[in-house]
């Protein structure tokens, strides 16, 4: 998907979202609907204005001039074909990370996926094992024991080995 298409889809998605919130808000009792209806009514014309100004400007990739609010501009290297390829791989890995946490549990899934990422990035084996072990130490020592946070078992491990 090209950047122009992606940009248009984003604008239109917001427009659709605000239309939905307005219509859903109108169906709610008055007190519950006040904020959603008021906010959506303001957001709809503003989104149209924002999309209009986007279309008026040229189609070259613009960097974000949002430095006043704490964001740095998107650099040119982040929007190259190579960058998008790396981002796609990241999304696949990130989905795997969440899936592994769900299936194998936090204590197994997260260190395992960290190890896989590091090895895939051709980091030295010893360093990769060390960092993955550190994650395990942080999870078990810091969160599970230190903060008394019960980290969930994996769905798959529960099925295979029981609770």
């Amino acid at each position, binding site marked *: 998907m090209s950047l122009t298409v992606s*940009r248009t889809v984003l604008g239109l998605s917001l427009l659709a979202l605000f239309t939905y919130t307005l219509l859903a808000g109108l169906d709610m009792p008055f007190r519950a609907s006040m904020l959603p209806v008021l906010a959506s009514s303001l957001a709809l014309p503003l989104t149209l204005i924002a999309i209009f100004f986007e279309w008026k400007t040229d189609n070259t990739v613009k960097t974000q001039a949002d430095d006043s609010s704490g964001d740095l501009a998107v650099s040119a290297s982040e929007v190259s074909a190579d960058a998008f390829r790396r981002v796609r791989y990241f999304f696949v890995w990130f989905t795997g990370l969440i899936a592994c946490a769900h299936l194998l549990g936090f204590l197994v899934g997260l260190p395992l996926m960290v190890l896989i990422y590091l090895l895939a990035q051709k980091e030295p084996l010893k360093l990769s094992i060390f960092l993955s072990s550190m994650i395990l130490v942080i999870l078990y020592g810091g969160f599970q024991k230190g903060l008394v946070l019960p980290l969930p078992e994996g769905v798959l491990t529960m099925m295979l080995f029981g609770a």
Partner: protein
Amino acid sequence: MSTWDAVWAGLIHILEPTAFLYMMLGIVISSTLVALPGIGSKTAIALLLPLAFTLDKFEAICLIVSVWAVSNTANSITSILFAVPGGSGSQATILDGYPMARNGEASRALSAAFTSSALGGIFGAIVLAMSLPVLKPLVILLGPPEFFVLILFGIAMVSTLSGKNKAKGLVIGILGLLISSVGIHLVSGIPRFTFGNLTLMDGLNLIPVTIGLFAIPELISLVASGSSISKMELNNLDSGRRQGIRDSFTHWWLVIRSSLVGVWVGMIPGLGSSVADWFAYGHARATEKGAEETFGKGDVRGVIAVDSATNAKEGGSLIPTLAFGIPGSSTLALVFGGLLIVGVKPGKEILTTHLDVTFSFIWLLIIASVITSLLCIIFIKPLAKATQVRPTLLVPVICAVSVVGAFANSNNFGDIIVMATFGVFGYWLRLHGWPRPPLLLGLVLGPEAERHLWTSYQLYEWEFVLRPITGSLLILLILILGWPTLKALFAKLQQGERV
């Protein structure tokens, strides 16, 4: 409680051993995380907030406020050493800091930056303390309609200062308000935008949304750029520390003036760090002797002006936050959200019956600024090395911690899905120049906005917008929002007359 009792009690609260320990932990983690490439102050706060919720009130305050208060200090390292801004507030530091580093004065520039940061932080805290007697009567004067419009004002200000297409910022700010309304409406019991999903019934929590919105897109950005600053040369860091510290005290008048600029910028909701640093740099360039010739070529005064302003800004930004509950920036919105969750509610109470809490903030600003600057000066080398950590090592580790952080908030796996969804959405927004900070502000202020809106309606119906202060604020808001359009219209009309 008298003011002096509150001053004393505020100090005692943060000097309690465990509270002090959490302040130190906040300082060390914040400085290290901010020094790491691609990890901003918002990410640092978002990752630490889950820990704060397990602590008692003052311990949590110490952790949250110290993480925020010192987040600008370590930013200067990458700016000075590699000409890569560590955050939006350290962009102007590059102008003179980097040439100094190239001239072999990196250590002097860094020490001057850290010392000025501490002095600016102290100055900001003093101004905050001095403003309290003025704020108290002002806050008591305001009612729900005024507070509702002030919240809109705060969101609009942050939104309008985010790029050329201001409508984008406003849309995202409103989206934040709408996201805050997701879940069961507490008064009517009506589920709003929940689609029958149990996770959404409780509403969207601040932590997973923030981690998703700010930490994940930054990590994606690190992955996308594919390079680090690690290949760059680390300049000489052995000598010049004392000279840098001396420089800040020699130019004390510049420190005070720049800090005043910082406080002023901080007090106006929406004007962020980067505005403070450029304003201060411009002011120093215009007023300092011989600056026209030396600024931009490695003049230590350029570094001092910027760093004292960016840290003084924090004290100034606490003024509208504590008094009116309007965070002056998105980072402060995150701090504000965290404080609300641990039971600190800005407004009348914090300026009257709980004045000791306010003075804890002031003491924290002072003590944390000084300790951070000292630690940064002592540990210049390890911090400089931290900036060279490869992104390939950072990304998986921070992702794993983010997943646990999102889960820790409510022990609900659904929050991890919320984090991932907002991570993708945040990346999408960032890619196309839609600002993310207004969303956070809308999300944090949404429940208060809704409460004040309903109370105002009950008291005055829609006529609440006609009350003097409310009406004036609304007119001011419309003027600020409409000014660029009006200006363009006048210019066109004038051109037409000439033709």
